């Protein structure tokens, strides 16, 4: 099944790309959205690796709950990594 080879490599590249994005971005909100995306991709990967339970857990914990916890933290602290003023776009 060559298609899975392709899918796996695409997902792997996207996973690493969004991880790098999460680390490099100065705007923490982008980093948080990126962790959401990482959870999303990971969840698909778990699904293909025949682990539906884990995919479910990763989706349930990673996409919604982790995101809200991070977002609340950003709300209560600062949105920019270097704590400079940024316009809120």
């Amino acid at each position, binding site marked *: *099944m*060559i298609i*899975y*080879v392709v899918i*796996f*490599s695409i*997902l*792997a*590249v996207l*996973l*690493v790309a969004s*991880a*790098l994005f*999460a*680390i490099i971005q100065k705007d*923490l909100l982008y*980093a*948080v959205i990126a*962790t959401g995306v*990482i*959870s999303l991709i*990971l969840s698909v*990967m*778990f699904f293909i*690796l*025949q*682990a*539906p*339970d*884990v995919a479910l*857990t*990763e989706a349930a*914990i*990673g996409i919604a*709950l*982790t995101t809200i*916890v*991070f977002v*609340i*933290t*950003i709300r*209560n*602290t*600062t949105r920019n*990594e*270097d*704590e400079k003023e940024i316009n809120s776009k």
Partner: protein
Amino acid sequence: MDFGQYQNIVTISVYGSAIALILIGLYAVLIKKNLIKIVIGLSLADAGIHLLFVAIGYLKGGTAPIFSPSVVGENVTMVDPVPQALVLTAIVIGFAVTAVALSLVIRLYKHHNTARIDQIKSLKW
């Protein structure tokens, strides 16, 4: 699923991305100054670990270890259930640690009005 001659590519992409996630996460933990970034790094490293866990349990041509009606009685291979069970536990624990870490970040910010390590100087780092 049998990957045939492309086995290596799959191996590299799964293990490679998992290890890359771990390393990127640890890099953020060690280098970044912003506390929230550090916590993000931790959760990235955790994510890599989880992927690694599931990957070692995978079996070529296996299906999920659930004996639902369509599977009972057929001769099917199933993937190893143990790593999946462990990673479930690990994910929940990881979330608990992340939540506690972030609450500490919030409190630090309230005291010091900054979320950067290099500006919180009352203790040595």
